[in-house]
């Protein structure tokens, strides 16, 4: 059934349809309405689950880890400061090979204190061993939560996944979302049944001390899990499409890139706006395209390598910045295509930090700049967009 709902409600419906059994969460702006809705589902009996009102985000993840180890399907949601507080236990979840699914409402890090969209929190967790999916619509949020359980619960993967909703822009925007029938979701996503779980009668110790002579083999296996996740994402999306009639673009969602002189790389909600801009610019005769990073982990290296040969310039829009380096997506894109025969010019645009609106006009200007840069190379590899005090005007 198609309903108008916010991204946060899409998350809550996603977790409900996936039949999450244990939900442990702590409120943080702008994630709150996810947990409020889920608490409502649980208290009304619509969702047969246990809701643990934990006293902080670290405990939220720690409780999910314990519950998932004991064989329950778990879900949590957080944002920004809460996500970074979880950092330690995020690594724990992946090291323990637990397919926990979490929504992160991506929000800026303080200071300056700021509750608006920014990908710093999410990007900072890129090494934690979580699959990370950026979404561009509320529909994608709901669908990806359901898909994530299926992707992650495969014995070859068994890693956790983070579904990224842009703060306010998705979390609080109401738009039509198709909420599938429970029976249909059940036919797609079977109950969680791990090969090994913590249970009485089986005296096993989960997560024990491993010496240097064995540690690497376990890490190697986690790497294989992430590699397998790559294939799983694609396969599960095919299955999803077969049942639900829609898909969201695999790891790298390409929009009009086939003949594009210049391609913009972006993640999250701004990519949706960028699609409109691509259409408008093409109407004016400019061949531009959009490559939306849907999976940031595992990173779509292969997809970028095949894109490299088809375009002259890649404009990477990062909604975060790695201090002392550049935008993380830019760094990844460049490293992906380094081994390619033909390498397009790549430039990094840092934009939209702390909720600064990225308007269609700004996106158009980035495309225009890239069309020039792709021919003569970039003077500055990394440009901060729409910063007062810098010479270039963007608005």
């Amino acid at each position, binding site marked *: 059934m198609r309903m108008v709902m916010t991204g946060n409600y899409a998350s809550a419906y996603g977790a409900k349809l996936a039949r999450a059994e244990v939900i442990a969460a702590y409120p943080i702006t702008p994630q709150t309405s996810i947990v409020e809705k889920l608490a409502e589902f649980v208290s009304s009996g619509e969702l047969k689950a246990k809701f643990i009102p934990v006293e902080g985000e670290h405990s939220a993840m720690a409780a999910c880890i314990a519950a998932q180890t004991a064989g329950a399907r778990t879900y949590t949601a957080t944002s920004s400061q809460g996500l970074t507080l979880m950092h330690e236990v995020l690594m724990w979840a992946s090291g323990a090979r637990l397919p926990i699914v979490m929504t992160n409402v991506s929000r800026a890090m303080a200071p300056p204190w700021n509750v608006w969209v920014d990908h710093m929190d999410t990007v900072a967790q890129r090494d934690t061993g979580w699959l990370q999916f950026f979404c561009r619509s509320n529909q994608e949020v709901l669908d990806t939560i359901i898909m994530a359980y299926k992707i992650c619960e495969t014995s070859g993967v*068994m890693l956790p996944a983070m579904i990224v909703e842009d703060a306010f822009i998705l979390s609080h925007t109401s738009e039509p979302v198709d909420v599938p029938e429970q029976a249909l979701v059940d036919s797609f996503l079977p109950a969680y049944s791990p090969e*090994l779980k913590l249970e009485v009668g089986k005296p096993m110790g*989960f997560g024990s001390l491993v010496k240097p002579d064995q540690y690497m083999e376990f890490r190697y296996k986690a790497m294989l899990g992430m590699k397998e996740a790559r294939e799983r994402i694609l396969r599960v999306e095919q299955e999803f499409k077969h049942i639900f009639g829609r898909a969201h673009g695999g790891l790298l969602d390409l929009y009009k890139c086939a003949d594009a002189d210049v391609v913009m790389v972006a993640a999250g909600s701004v990519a949706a706006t960028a699609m409109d801009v691509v259409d408008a610019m093409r109407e004016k005769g400019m061949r531009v395209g959009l490559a939306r990073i849907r999976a940031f982990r595992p990173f779509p290296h292969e997809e970028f390598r095949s894109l490299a040969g088809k375009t002259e310039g890649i404009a990477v829009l990062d909604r975060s910045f790695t201090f002392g380096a550049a935008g993380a997506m830019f760094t990844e894109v460049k490293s992906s295509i380094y081994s390619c025969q033909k390498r397009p010019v790549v430039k990094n645009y840092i934009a939209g930090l702390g909720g600064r609106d990225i308007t269609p006009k700004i996106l158009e200007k980035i495309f225009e700049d890239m069309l020039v840069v792709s021919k003569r190379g970039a003077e500055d590899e990394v440009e901060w967009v729409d910063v007062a005090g810098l010479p270039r005007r963007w608005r």
Partner: protein
Amino acid sequence: MTKSYEEITLTPISDTPSTMNITGLWRVVKPVVDKEKCKKCTICWKFCPDAAITLVDGEPIVDLRYCKGCGICAFECPSKCIIMVKEGEQ
């Protein structure tokens, strides 16, 4: 012996009894029980931190593969029937 990544579980799960650790090798002194004096009070068994003492008809049998030689049993024994002797001595 390092196991191949193909032979191990996804995450370390310990399922082997710790009797695989021969902690008796740490020992400097060992308990020797004078069975004549033993009153079968079971106190030595009760206070062994390593569960290395078992009772057979009330008499303590020290499993020297695991006894670390802490000496609690000797200290606590009310009839003083356990003495700690240096390894290698009688």
